[in-house]
């Protein structure tokens, strides 16, 4: 892997983290002293993706604008890595008229036709639409691919297995990416999943499967590159599982009292670890790190400012957009 790619992976991870930290800040800013989930500039459930940056950065580095991505209820890292417009995405999260969905969707329902990005708040149910996008690409003779992201909890849902079977049967250009962050809200993987490696489930559908350990962004990049190349070449689907990290709660306000791994979580943060690695390898310098952070911060704060300045939807138009 060349240094430019490694620096780019780092840059993307920092951008995602910077974004999630800013949303975290603004989400809680007006929910004090008592936390009220429906209050404030950013109301509702908020599932932040800190710790899972290596998955989005490593996979989406191989994608082009015309490739499709479906993300689950925790979508920001994937959206950013896919290249969704940061300002309109943020405006949507703030429920504004200039948001991706004019404030009708919210943070779990981001749709960006320009980058073929969408997400679904229902666990596992983003997989079938990705199949359909892959189906349309294949029929059009394009070499575009579709990538469906899902948490490890989704791998036990019926729709996951229906989708793998159909994708394999019809040889669709789709990549399934399971983000194993160890937790389905409060249920640990050991209490939900009969096997140790979800990628082994690929065997049941006659497709390749691979698991990446240790939230290693370079391993994600390499493994995903092979899967995307296979799909582009018409060789069909691949199932990947990435062992990643949920750095924060399932959603903001989650006290995480159930969590027995909290002590070790900070030490598993993938960004300082990768930063140290790239410093040691002389890919980054203290100066270049500072520059990456400054640029990320400037982009994110500009997006948040855009959102805050965007108009609030008119209540008398609440019933619009049901039909085309």
């Amino acid at each position, binding site marked *: 892997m060349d240094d430019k790619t490694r620096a780019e992976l780092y840059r993307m991870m920092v951008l995602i983290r910077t974004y999630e930290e800013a949303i975290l800040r603004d989400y809680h800013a007006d929910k004090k002293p008592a936390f009220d989930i429906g209050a404030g500039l950013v109301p509702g459930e908020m599932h932040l993706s800190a710790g899972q940056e290596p998955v989005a950065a490593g996979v989406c580095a191989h994608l082009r604008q015309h490739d499709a991505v479906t993300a689950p209820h925790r979508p920001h890292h994937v959206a950013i890595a896919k290249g969704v417009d940061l300002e309109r995405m943020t405006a949507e999260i703030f429920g504004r008229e200039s948001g991706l969905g004019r404030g009708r969707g919210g943070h779990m329902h981001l749709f960006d036709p320009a980058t073929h990005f969408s997400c679904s708040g229902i666990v596992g*149910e983003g997989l079938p*639409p990705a199949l*359909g996008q892959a*189906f349309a690409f294949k029929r059009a003779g394009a070499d575009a691919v579709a990538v469906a992201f899902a948490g490890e909890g989704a791998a036990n849902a019926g729709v996951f297995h229906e989708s793998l079977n*159909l994708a394999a049967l019809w040889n669709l250009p789709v990549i399934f990416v399971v983000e194993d962050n160890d937790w389905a809200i409060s249920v640990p993987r050991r209490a939900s999943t009969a096997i140790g490696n979800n990628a082994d489930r690929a065997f049941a559908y006659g497709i390749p499967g691979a698991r990446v350990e240790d939230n290693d962004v370079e391993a994600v990049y390499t493994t995903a590159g092979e899967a995307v190349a296979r799909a582009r070449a018409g060789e069909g689907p691949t199932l990947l599982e990435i062992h990643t990290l949920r750095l924060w709660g399932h959603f903001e306000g989650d006290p995480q009292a159930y969590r027995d791994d909290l002590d070790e979580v900070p030490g598993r943060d993938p960004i300082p670890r990768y930063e140290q690695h790239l410093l040691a390898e002389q890919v980054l310098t203290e100066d270049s790190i500072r520059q990456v952070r400054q640029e990320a911060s400037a982009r994110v704060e500009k997006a948040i400012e855009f959102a805050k300045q965007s108009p609030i939807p008119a209540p008398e138009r609440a019933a619009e957009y049901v039909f*085309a």
Partner: protein
Amino acid sequence: MSVTQTPPAPTTSRRLTTAKAIVEGIAQEMERDPGVVVIGEDVGAYGGIFSSTAGLLDRFGPDRVMDTPISESAFIGLGTGAAVEGMRPIVELMFADFFGVCMDQIYNHMAKIHFESGGHVTVPMVLMTAAGGGYSDGAQHSQCLWGTFAHLPGMKVVVPSNPADAKGLMISAIRDDNPVVYMFHKGAMGLPWMAKNPRSVGPVPEEAYETPIGRAAVAREGADVTIVTLSLSVQHALDVAEDMIGEGVDVEVVDLRSLVPLDRETVLTSVAKTGRLIVVDEDYRSYGVSGEIAAIVAEQDPALLRAPVQRVAVPDVPLPYARVLEDAVLPNRERIRAAVRRLTQA
């Protein structure tokens, strides 16, 4: 190919079953638009369990008429994703009753994406499904359930009662930029292996035409009582209307044809004329189409009614298997006739 916006009065003498009319509509659109594909269980060599896709495989080949595994969530969601990317898939859910295994893809995805995207993403897809009982298929294969689909926002719902509308509504559904749930009644398809009303065979123009979605039809004009109904029950209601001539009662029959959007105007106009309303619905009685129609009149002007509304619907019981029990709960001619008498003799 000529394309007309409204169905001409069928001057043709050519008569088709509802099933063949549906297939003709699909085939004409497949000829016109390469983005139209048919996806579902047994839609290929079998031609659809209720003949809704008969002959399409031979004509268009396996790349456009695709049998699927029994994976309704996967293949309905596939249809949604393909529609998002600009195709116009027709996806068949073999029985409406089977929505239980795949409803998330239908009401949380197919129906909501346009809204959640603020109108930036469209889902031009047809979800075709078989509804209705009357042939002892039991509680899991006989339901209409159109009220359930119509209740949930974001999908149009059409319910043809005759061959000409079946073709025109299919063409309209395919061309519509929204998801359209196309619900045909098994008993109205004109199948050779199921008892049928002669009204399941009728004149169908040969050219492609649209039957407008959201517009009801006055299937029979009358002065004394309005029957608002849909799908197979329209055929029963027309039979009853003819019977009632002998009793000196002039029945108007309104065929809703679409549940979403609903043509409130035609319902209100008819009720304003007759002052008497019977709603006949093969779906469950409570929280459904019959209550909605009654509510429209109540909201507009209860004084339109000279007598209380009558409802003939399935009395909130799963469809029983035994013939005599199923007959007892379906809105058949006897129950409709009794309602007309109650209302006109009151």
